[in-house]
């Protein structure tokens, strides 16, 4: 595992995402209310480009006629068959224990720290003034 700088913080505002390629893998970094999460962009169902799907919330119901809507913007739906995954954990909604998409640790690092290394910053120019999104791959 190594730490890769994939974006400046300002590039991925809350509710947005950025698709990057790190060490040959297609990975999407999401910003949920200021926190960053990284998911492998390949659905465990049939390999669809999962991170290009829509972000939605969770609809739960204990009986017909009653429903609860929560976690708006935190569930990603694969654009192919609509499988839903929790962006925070990578777990599927249908069977969280057994079906998940690979998730990657993401952190925010100060430019001053990043310029010292050992961060990998192939495509993102680094300055000490900025803050950076770093993915551990």
């Amino acid at each position: 595992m190594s730490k890769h700088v994939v974006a400046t913080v300002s590039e991925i505002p809350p509710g947005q995402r950025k698709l990057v390629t790190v060490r040959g893998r297609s990975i999407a970094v999401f910003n949920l209310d200021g926190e960053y999460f990284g998911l492998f962009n390949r659905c465990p169902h049939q390999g669809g480009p999962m991170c290009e799907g829509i972000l939605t919330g969770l609809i739960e119901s204990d009986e017909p006629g009653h429903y609860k809507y929560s976690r708006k913007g935190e569930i990603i739906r694969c654009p192919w068959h609509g499988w839903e995954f929790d962006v925070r954990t990578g777990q599927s909604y249908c069977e969280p224990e057994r079906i998940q998409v690979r998730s990657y640790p993401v952190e925010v690092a100060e430019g001053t720290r990043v310029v010292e290394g050992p961060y990998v910053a192939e495509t993102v120019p680094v300055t000490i003034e900025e803050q950076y999104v770093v993915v551990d791959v």
Partner: protein
Amino acid sequence: MSSALLERAVAHETKIGVIDCDVHHAMRSSKDLYPYLPARWREHLETYGSRRPTPFTGSSPYFKAAPALSRKDSWPRNGGPPGSDLAFLQEQLLDRYGIEAGMLHLLSPTGMDQRNQELAPVLCRAINEWQFHEWTQKDQRLKAAIVVPGEDAAAAVAEIEHWAGNRDFAQVSVVTHTIEPLGRRRYWPIYEAAAAHGLPIGLHSSGNNGYAVTAAGWSSYYVEEHHEVSMSQQALVTSLVCEGVLARYPSLKVVIVEAGLAWVPSLCWRLDRQWARMKDEVPHLTRPPSSYVREQVWFTTQPMDEPERPEDILSILEWIGWDRILFATDYPHWDFDNPETAFKAQMTEQQRRMVFRDNARAVYGLG
């Protein structure tokens, strides 16, 4: 669901060409047909529009799960609905998956729904001209189905006769939501003509007849209706068998598209059992019903059934016959099957070749 439902790392296999038996091309708009329509009918459509047994002019009475029923990533970059751009389709499907042939099924317009009986055959001719000039002549991997005004059998036969022998057309397409069950005599001349020319009848769920897909009214949810469509296809197969269409035209080939296939054995078991008791009602069936299905009907794979134990699908495919299974993606629809990952159960190399290519070559007479 078991973790085996997930795509598994596939060991390197011999790369074989794939034949996709269900590809949906589409028009950008109904105006795409204008170059192929006589002026009299262009003006008619501009004034009176298209009259079909459905209350909606621009939508469907049957639910859809996603806009245009399609994968969210299948909208062409140049605008236009999914399936309407040949270059994008070539890139996203044919080239991407090494498709050596794609069997086109046009879902709209059908021509067959058209209530104006003079317009229906004209529309079908225009549709087939459009398919020929804009699709199959531009990419020889794509094969069209002859779209026919099937509620008017004589006109349908004329359209088949017009295109028969043209290698761009590999089958005859008839909608499945018809005025009467497709085994009924009014449709027989179509089967006779198709069989005479060695053209399979491709039956993809389509059309509007004003009836609900269930036998008792309109369902509430898409997830219901998505499955009920398969049931209506089962009724269709039952009609073709019991009315004696398959018996009467022994060389007729029928391809059932996008109806699933796990139901085939149980349907045949029930038909055989009833036939054993009630042969005297249907004396034209001189053999068990299942024998007609196993000789004259083929089934496409998509949407692939996914039992808890993936291997269970193998015994079903075995029963139907490995030579009767046709791989399909249903591109660009949302329930598209990726040829690289859709099959979770292990098949032998020979079975793979049959399902992914050789059976289609045989049924459609491809090179």
